[in-house]
């Protein structure tokens, strides 16, 4: 039977860290999560069992690099190159806090 399963909408939040992850960690998005374009709001959304995460502009770029080939530092480097004009420190915070949140939900492997 179904329980009250609601579409839970969460925005990425600052403050969490991936401090306990080793530097060699190469995150891979879990196959149970799906990155998809949302035609209604015209932005990307991460969908997984019982919930969905509406994404800001950088999050889909982070997720596309979560394929098990890049370390967290590697992902930050790639984003620094792409989003010129944004300070590395800001991007670093954005990437680590976002990865920490979806990792805590069991959506990252590797």
């Amino acid at each position, binding site marked *: *039977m*179904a*329980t*009250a*399963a*609601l*579409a839970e*909408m969460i925005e990425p939040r600052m403050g969490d860290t991936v401090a306990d992850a080793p530097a060699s960690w190469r995150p891979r998005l*879990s*196959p*149970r999560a*799906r990155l*998809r374009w*949302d035609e*209604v709001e015209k932005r990307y*959304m991460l*969908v*997984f*069992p*019982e919930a*969905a995460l509406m994404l800001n502009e950088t999050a889909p770029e982070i997720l596309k690099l979560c394929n098990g080939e890049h370390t967290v530092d590697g992902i930050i480097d790639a984003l620094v190159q792409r989003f010129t004009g944004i300070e590395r420190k800001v991007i670093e915070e954005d990437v680590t806090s976002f990865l920490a949140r979806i*990792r*805590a*939900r*069991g959506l990252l492997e590797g």
Partner: protein
Amino acid sequence: MGAPRPYTLVAELTYKCPLKCLYCSNPVSFSQMRDELSTEQWVRTFSEAADLGVVQLHLSGGEPVVRKDLPELIRHARSRDLYTNLITGGTLLNEEMLRQFRDCGLDHIQLSIQDTDRRTAELVAGIRSYDKKLKIAPLIKKLGFSLTINVVMHRMNIDHVPALIAQAAELGAQRLELANTQYHAWAEKNRSALMPTRAQLDQAEALVLEARPRYQGTMEIAYVKADYYSEYPKPCMGGWARSYMVITPTGEVLPCHAAHVIPGLHFDSVRDQSLTTIWAESKGLNAFRGESWMQEPCRSCPMKAIDFGGCRCQAFMLAGDAAAADPVCSLSPHHDIIQEAIAQAEQGDGRFIYRDSRNSERLSIRPLEPASR
């Protein structure tokens, strides 16, 4: 005012089910509703749901696996980018079917488990099913599906929380839902056999909180509280017809599984109108949208934006008025009904009836009436 965006569709594909669970959320009169939607009607409905903004699709029942067109429905849902979840009892599944579902793009499987104790599990389900469920779980994992295990909690299994958590982890679930029974439909008929005591609930909640950090990042443990024991009501369905819809096997579009019980509400069917029209204009769906229907104590309550006055079906069943505050709320003038039920739970009562066609037919003869005390 336009209708809000729906995010979740529960498609109850059929009321047929080999299990007879005491807490089933299907209507007590399910035996009177046999005329199921066709494949084409579901396909069109899924497309319209996707256009409306629905993201999550739950294929439910009854036992959805009895629908022969399930692979086709899954394939179509995925072609419209719906995150497609199969809610199953698991007893009719086999490896070949699972492979077929996977090839059609099924995203996720939610398997119900009744208990870790075989005797109680089969007492609650009404048939031999324990071994089949434990055999199918590893096959689900073998084929690469991510797995949620759902356990409906009640007085007979709530003392088994540590064993349920350990078993779900062993079976490879990424999510475990321990969901206390909501007393609607068959569960309402069986409330005195199912309702746990406060001491049982306090212990279960403490054990869940204690276990969560150990499984963080590997298995999410969701716990749905027993609302009878809460001070304030649950935000039922996140608000009436706000983000969630249930479509019955015969095509009626409801805000939840139970809304049938409220007399005088008219719900439309996707047989007669498009889902787009129904979602915006259905009298039943609009009946309790927003706040204008609220009475005191809800109307002036600061909590109304959080809990929406609780559950409309429960307000009708217990207080006799679907627009009243949910009697679960400690501010409800009818809260004594809940306190009486809690006092009764301390005594316990072993009598129950199974969810099956015979009982459904027997209970459908009498009109449904609000519980009077």
